[in-house]
């Protein structure tokens, strides 16, 4: 039901061409599209009804993310409505409630500023938030801040003495400079420089030196939704490819008649089915037993990363030369799959998590 209605809306309002048009116009965000998504309740999919959300849970968020992935929809859904909303839900004060309401209505967007190096490693965060008087001073540089070019607020992870602390601050606070990155997937990302940025105790989300009790659930929610999006990316690329196998002729035959291609296409379908099970399981675990969802989430992200990679590589190869052209959409899928592979932990990061939880 949710999938069908989302599909109908996205096919009309946000087909792949929408991303292409945005790229050609030099844009990474479409506020009008996001407003419509918010009106349908998508921005508040995880937000309690008392704050204006629809509170449908992580499995439903995964269904939406999958549908968005199929046509490479660029929106603040993951950053704001999944990651930031989940972080804010861990805190029960009036400001968090107000922030959740602003996300649900679509009027406020968030970006998560964690990465400092080229690989995801939240525990290895070095950027200091130095204590000064009653507050803090943040100095350093964050990279790969997804949606950081346009977001209204930033969730910033910084080192405070022995621990890590998560700050929730406006993106235009004095001392913050945002430098837009020109990303291969045509989506928004920024390098954010913090030059003696002031923060108060009010700006801390959760407790000082204890970022992870707020951030871990938020990251896992984001990883599961990103895995779901990647499964949509795989499905979108695969659908185009199977269609092409049924219409393209070479050597007087449909190329789908060649067993070498049939078996690779069949293997890819099998892998997408196996990955779909892992993604559904992650959504269920986040809804039913979020304290113990880490294994399920890492399993989903690891599988989705690999399946999306296989789908886009086969997608280009089976299309042949046309798959390499910018005029054809397959390249957009390949580039999104690569960016999605890195964001919030790559295959190796999540495979290590599985191995650690499985005792080796």
């Amino acid at each position: 039901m949710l999938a069908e209605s989302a599909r109908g809306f996205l096919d009309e309002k946000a087909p792949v061409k929408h991303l292409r048009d945005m790229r050609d116009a030099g844009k990474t965000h479409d506020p009008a599209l996001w407003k419509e998504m918010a009106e349908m309740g998508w921005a508040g999919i995880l937000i309690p009804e008392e704050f204006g959300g629809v509170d449908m849970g992580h499995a439903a968020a995964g269904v939406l993310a999958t549908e968005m992935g199929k046509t490479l929809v660029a929106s603040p859904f993951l950053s704001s409505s999944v990651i930031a909303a989940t972080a804010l839900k861990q805190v029960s004060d009036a400001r968090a409630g107000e922030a959740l309401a602003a996300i649900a209505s679509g009027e406020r967007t968030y970006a998560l500023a964690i990465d400092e190096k080229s690989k995801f490693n939240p525990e290895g965060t070095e950027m200091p938030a130095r204590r000064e008087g009653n507050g803090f001073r943040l100095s350093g540089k964050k990279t790969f801040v997804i949606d950081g070019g346009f977001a209204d607020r930033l969730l910033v992870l910084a080192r405070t003495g022995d621990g890590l602390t998560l700050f929730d601050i406006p993106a235009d606070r004095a001392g913050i400079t945002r430098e837009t990155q020109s990303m291969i997937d045509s989506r928004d990302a920024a390098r954010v420089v913090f030059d003696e940025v002031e923060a108060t105790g009010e700006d801390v989300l959760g407790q000082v030196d204890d970022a992870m009790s707020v951030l871990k659930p938020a990251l896992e929610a984001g990883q599961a939704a990103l895995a779901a999006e990647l499964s949509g990316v795989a499905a979108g690329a695969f659908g185009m490819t199977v269609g092409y196998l049924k219409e393209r002729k070479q050597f007087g035959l449909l190329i789908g008649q060649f067993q070498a291609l049939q078996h690779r296409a069949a293997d890819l379908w099998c892998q997408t089915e196996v990955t779909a099970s892992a993604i559904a399981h992650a959504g269920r675990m986040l809804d039913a037993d979020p304290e113990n969802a880490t294994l399920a989430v890492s399993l989903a992200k690891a599988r989705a990363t690999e399946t999306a990679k296989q789908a886009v590589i086969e997608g280009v190869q089976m299309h042949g030369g046309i798959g390499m052209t910018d005029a054809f959409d397959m390249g957009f899928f390949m580039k999104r799959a690569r960016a999605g592979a890195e964001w919030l932990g790559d295959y190796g990061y999540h495979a290590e998590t599985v191995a650690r939880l499985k005792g080796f």
Partner: protein
Amino acid sequence: MAQETEELAGFRAELRDWLEENCPAEMRDGSSPEDHTCWGGRNWVFESDAQKAWLNRCAAQGYTVPTWPREYGGAGLSRAEEKVFLSELARIDARLPLQSFGIWMLGPALLHFGTPEQKAHYLPPIARGEVRWCQGYSEPGAGSDLASVQTKCEDKGDHYLINGQKIWTSYADKADMIFALVRSDREAKKHLGITFLLIDMRNEGVSTRPIKLISGVSPFCETFFDNVVVPKVNDEGISAVVGTVNRGWDVAKYLLTHERSMISAMGTGLGGARPLGAVLKDDLDGDLDTSLRAAAMKAEIDSLAIGLTLERYKDMANSGQGVGDASAMLKYVGTELNKDRHELMMSAGGSDALEWGGAFGDRPADWLRTKANSIEGGTTEVMLGIVSRRVLGLPG
């Protein structure tokens, strides 16, 4: 774990008490090797009194075939209850009381295609472990191309006369009965002249010869039919044909989907098996090298995801959605994974794993045995062909 309904929690508590009282201590080594499997049958020799008691107690409750209807020897459990049942067995590491081709293959086919009389006659002895069945499908000239079976079935009025040869019949030398695909119409198109026939192995003219495999064991046989007389109805008036004469392919295909799902479960380490990486680490008595560890991580990830896929498909089947051709997917991914896992176990075992019955016991034989997984029940290539044509609709 999500919250269990009150009803399921009640069932779990009752079951736990029952198991505590009825599962002998000797049977609580469920992760033990295959040679402790209880297959049942007329000639079965129990390895211990405990094995016999465990089978009989379970059979009395319907727990050898928990999801079959009670009237046919099952416990009539729902899918949710079955999950509870299996998780409670795993919790105390209990062996399955009985395994057989009757349970995995013929039973589901009879439940779907059998007459009420056939069900009442054949199913309860399977559930009680009294009759052991084998599967007569492949022939020397009909492997992957199963529908080209040639074993001849002639209609002689009150009986059929069978002549021909089957191959790869698992445990035919130990079986009491065989369910076989036979060619009953030589003129019809090959899928349309096949009959699914039930034959008593005691009949005159039936003989078997074990085939020794590269693993050193002989789980498979050649089975010969030399002028075998099969009455159309037996002494109790039960028909020897399942489904319709010449339409046995429908039954065969249905049964194959069950066989494939069963084989696919092998590689997933379901049922309480330890994570592969932990096993390998113990084997090496130290850390895994980088390449072995990376391969073990991938195998573990695939194993978990394929296990979830088996569960998802069982749930779909249970809610009435046809999974038919998708069983080819389960079979393909499950068996390839199982081969990978055994390659890694051999690698971790190093030279110690090269010795028959050495430090790692059956490991080399098990490794070699897994190579058949992607051949038996339809090869990997046949599975991919089914997916490409029937699921993806690619042109033939």
